[in-house]
């Protein structure tokens, strides 16, 4: 008997406003109201300014390692724009723009990279999780958050972000499988920016698209131009609606590009072709939307100047707030460990300044018996 075809699949890729400024009027119709378009543009510009300043802070020794978000502003922003305020945003570390849109004050991101845990103390009600440093781990949490929403019969969903490299980690595959098999209201949003530090996407995945990884899990999947805010919004609307109405997950692969180095500790010139970078500069999501707004007469020079002034001021304020935050004594770190501090830890905390050991040192005589004491006990 000849073998039968039991399954075939194809992957759609959505682009609406392309790099040459061509707009697909059909796909883009009524997608984003003009007022919102302007706000989205402004948010991207502010985020870009933030990125530039963060980079400078690192270079001048005022901040630690920082991963630039430059070039990827449209992805997380488009997603956050579509989501409801109580949907979970479970991010990695290149989603500043979406987080700012949701309402995370900019200084939180600065504090994180300034080596201060208070950057993770997310204000109540924002429904976001802290930046995820271990690659590929947070998608499982998003699946759990989505599961809880379903369990409670809330109309909430989760959207989790991660890079191309993250799709190689085992946890990613487990999250996809759980989401599909448990019918979870979740969107997996992959930012394929071409690189995982120095390793190109084609060394993470031998299939022509990352999107098709969803097929293997029985999940809807789609690709989009991640530097096109319209395309991102369109695929996110479909995916979030699917999640909300049918508890089915979606895997989105957004094609974008990391215009900066991996982080400020990296030097991409060691492994990346300058021509490739130049090509992607032409596809900058901010320039693209800006040109479109001008075409629609929604934007002009003076508005741009005013926006740049506003961005400067807002970012400067955020830097000030981050840099001027009061020092926390190390004692606070002990108190942060458990709901109720264990006795031994409390002792470490209380003796840390009096004992060499930050523990029950001789100075306190808390626990260590004296020689004389021992002799007395023995006798």
């Amino acid at each position: 008997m000849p073998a039968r075809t039991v399954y075939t699949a194809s992957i759609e890729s959505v682009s609406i406003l392309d790099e040459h400024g061509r707009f697909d009027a059909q796909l883009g119709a009524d997608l984003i109201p003009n007022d919102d378009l302007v706000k989205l543009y402004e948010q991207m510009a502010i985020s870009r300014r933030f990125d530039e300043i963060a980079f400078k802070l690192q270079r001048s020794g005022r901040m630690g390692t920082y991963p630039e978000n430059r070039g990827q502003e449209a992805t997380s922003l488009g997603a956050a724009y579509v989501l409801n305020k109580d949907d979970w945003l479970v991010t990695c570390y290149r989603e500043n723009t979406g987080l700012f849109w949701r309402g995370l004050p900019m200084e939180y991101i600065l504090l994180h990279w300034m080596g201060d845990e208070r950057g993770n103390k997310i204000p109540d009600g924002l429904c976001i999780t802290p930046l995820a440093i271990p690659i590929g781990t947070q998608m499982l949490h998003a699946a759990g958050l989505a599961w809880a929403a379903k369990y409670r019969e809330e109309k909430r969903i989760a959207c989790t972000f991660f890079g191309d490299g993250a799709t190689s980690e085992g946890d990613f595959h487990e999250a996809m499988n759980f989401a599909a098999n448990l019918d979870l209201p979740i969107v997996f949003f992959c930012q394929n920016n071409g690189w995982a530090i120095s390793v190109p996407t084609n060394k993470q995945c031998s299939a022509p698209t990352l999107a098709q990884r969803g097929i293997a899990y029985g999940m809807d999947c789609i690709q989009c131009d991640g530097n096109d805010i319209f395309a991102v919004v369109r695929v996110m609307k479909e995916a979030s609606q699917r999640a909300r109405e049918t508890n089915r997950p979606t895997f989105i692969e957004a094609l974008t590009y990391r215009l900066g180095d991996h982080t400020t500790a990296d030097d991409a010139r060691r492994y990346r072709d300058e021509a490739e970078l130049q090509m992607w500069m032409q596809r900058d999501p901010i320039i693209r939307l800006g040109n479109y707004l001008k075409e629609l007469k929604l934007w002009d020079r003076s508005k741009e100047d005013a926006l740049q002034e506003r961005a400067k001021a807002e970012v400067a304020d955020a830097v000030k707030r981050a840099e001027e935050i009061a020092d926390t004594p190390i004692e606070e770190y002990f108190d942060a460990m458990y709901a109720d501090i264990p006795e031994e830890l409390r002792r470490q905390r209380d003796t840390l300044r009096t004992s060499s050991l930050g523990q029950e040192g001789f100075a306190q005589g808390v626990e260590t018996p004296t020689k004389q004491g021992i002799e007395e006990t023995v006798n």
Partner: protein
Amino acid sequence: MANLTLVQAINLALIQEMERDDRIIILGEDIGVNGGVFRVTEGLHKRFGEKRVVDTPLAESGILGTAIGLAMAGLRPIPEIQFEGFLAPAYDQICTHAARMRSRTRGALTVPLTVRVPIGGGIHAPELHSDSPEAVYAHQPGIKVVMPSSPYDAKGLLISAIRDPDPVIFFEPKRLYRAFREEVPEDEYTIPLGKARVVAEGDEVTVISWGAPVVQCMTAIEASGKSIELIDLRTIYPIDTQTIVQSVRKTGRAVIVHEAPKNCGLGAEIASRIMEHCFLYLEAPIQRVTGFDMTMPYYKKELEYLPEAERIGKALAEVAAY
């Protein structure tokens, strides 16, 4: 003889061993074209080609799991895990397979691999780039755990690790990667695993440490003006009990210094061994100067967490005066 940093010493050891033994394959994230995020594998990709220097997908369990297969097939893989914080996904493969293969097959299959892992704090790195999990792995029977504190030792220990017939985790203290240079012979030499080094001799107190804190101990000892013996463990499993015992029997006082949290840290194991072998020689309770029992703080506070020279110095004074 060349004056090398710890990074350069490891790089040299890798090159020399790869030239000597074509069973060696190195694999990991960004170790090829990019030469590793700390540049430890700089130039190897060019020199040995992509067949032997392999940029893998981003998957630590995958890196360790395939390295185990390579090793069982008779090759000598040297996987790199980019930071100690990302050993966690590889923990399963290390502890459930690499560590047990020899014993459960009664030697029919063995896993002669060396995992290289940057470790520890003090370089203002982000979260999960500054931990010290060495005791976790020392606790797992079946693997050896090494941590050099100088360029000279790094080269000799790494060569021994690579040639060792069992799995070795080779922790490289990031804080020392470029902290100082040292004369490192071009010629081949090995430093046996399981042998500590007496860094400084003395008879008042014995200080036992390994990795980056060894340098802090040296500073503290110098400032103390006392006659203090400093032992750099170099290999933390198997521990060189003999060197420790000999020293503590002489001094009667011991301070153990490590970056990892105190609770169930390696200091506890060493203190027990001292009790077992030196009880009647002790003049003072054994003391530990360690990280606190908390999550490694982000970098703003890391120096308040780490056992820095000042805190060690206080302990020396207290223990000596007891």
